[in-house]
Each structure stands twice: as C-alpha cells, then as structure tokens.
C-alpha cells in the first residue's frame, strides 16, 4: 500500500486565523501529524507560508479541507515523500 509520508505546501492565508491556529488545525487531523509552518512573505492582507506535514500516512484531502476551512488557499505542492509497501493483490 502506498502512503504519503511528507508534503511541503505553498499556501496563501489571511492574517487571521494566525499561523499557529492553522498549524494546529492541520495537526489535529491525525495523532502522529507533525506540522512545521514557515512564513515566507507578509502582505497587507495576506501571508505566503510553507507548510511541511509529516505522518505515517497523510490524508491529503483532509489537510486541503482544513486549509480551505481556515480561509487559506493551497497554491502548490512543492515536495512530496511517498513510500510504497508490499502489494496485497
């Protein structure tokens, strides 16, 4: 089974909610989720951030939904680490 172990996302977010709240919302998706958030650019109304998420099996759709719910927009997936496991076929 293939599982996503790490993703780095380029995200545009409003100033509120704060980066800490956005990181917490993503970390709440799974118990082993580790989130690292870096602010790259600050504008008048928005911030460009990089979000690095690591976990045993990342649920990417849940991360995307959490980002959207917090009023942020996913611009691109910059890095991905994926591991393939033994096939069950």
């Amino acid at each position, binding site marked *: 089974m293939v599982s996503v172990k790490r993703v780095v996302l380029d995200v*545009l977010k*409003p100033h*509120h*909610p704060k980066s800490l*709240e956005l990181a917490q919302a993503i970390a709440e998706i799974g118990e082993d989720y580790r989130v690292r958030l870096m602010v790259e650019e600050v*504008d*008048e*109304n*928005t911030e460009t951030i990089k979000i690095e998420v690591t976990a045993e099996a990342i649920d990417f759709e849940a991360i995307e939904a959490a980002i*959207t*719910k*917090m*009023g*942020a*927009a996913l611009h691109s997936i910059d890095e991905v680490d994926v591991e393939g496991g033994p096939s069950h076929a």
Partner: protein
Amino acid sequence: MWTQLAFLLRITRSEGIMRRYFVVNGFDGALTMLGLIIGFLVGPPAQLSLVIGVCLSAAIALGVSGVSSAYVSEAAERKRSLKQLEEAMVTDLGDSAHGDAVRWVPILTALVNGSAPVMISLLILTPLWLSDAGVAVLLPPLHASVVIALGLVFLLGVYLGHVAGISWLRSGFQALMLALMTTGLIYLFAGN
C-alpha cells in the same frame, strides 16, 4: 459550539466590538430606565403597574432597536471585510471560517447589543415587580430601582476600567457621575 463562536470572533477581531456594543447599549438601558423612573418620581403619582408597563415597553423597544441596528450594520461590515479579503486572496471564501463569520458574527453581535439593555432594564425593574407582587422591599420601589440603576452604571464603569487597564474605582465613579448628572438634569427640567 462556543469554541467555534469564539474562533469566529477572533478571526474577525470582533471581541472589542462586542464589548463596546454591550457597554454602550447597557448604558442606554440603564440611563433610559433611570430617566423614566426619575420622571415618575418627579411627576404626579402613578400606579406601579403603569410604571412597570412604560419601563418594560421602553426596554423592549431598546432591545429590538439594539438587535436590528447591530445586525444591519454588522452584516454590512462583515460582507465588506469578506469581499476585501476575497479580493486579496483571489479566491471564494464562502465555505471558509470567514464565510461562517459573515453569517454568525452579525447574529451574535445583534444578540449582545439587544440583550444588554433588556437585561439591565429587567434588573432595574426587579424592585417594581417584587413590590407589585406584594413582596416587601427595603426601600420604596421606585427609589430601590434608582439605587439598582446607579449601581449597574457604576459596575459598567468598573468593567470599562478593567478593559482599559485603568483604575476601576475611578472609572466606576466617572460612570456614576454621568448617571447622577442625568438625574440632576431631569430634576432641573422636568421637576416641579
């Protein structure tokens, strides 16, 4: 639910607005009741049921006015903020927490704005109701209501002092002075 509402207030930075609405309309409620009751004290004697009816009508009017005015103005303000944010983000935020805030923050603000004068008015009217129901009150009912009104105005001042981080006692007395000035003006212009 409360956590979610607190979150919506935080992202729209509406906590300060709610505080302001609560204090401003709370003052309105307290001073309106104070004015009406002083008016009944300086005027010809009136039945307690009439006093209660007039004061309660004023409290309801203040409540409805508070709810409707705050809802209309906050809804417009929230929509404007969302539009500005959507332009900056170049995306539709209708399904985000910001979209939820546009729907819920005006309702919450309206409830605070409307309930503050009603709750404060009801507290002020308590001695009148008790007396009307035959319950013994320490002071004559109208005087007891005036004392409660002055006490609540003082407490609103104390709260403002707490918010501003200044002396609560000084802030409380400043608010109390305003209420006493209102009383003085009513005696001056409406007293016999």
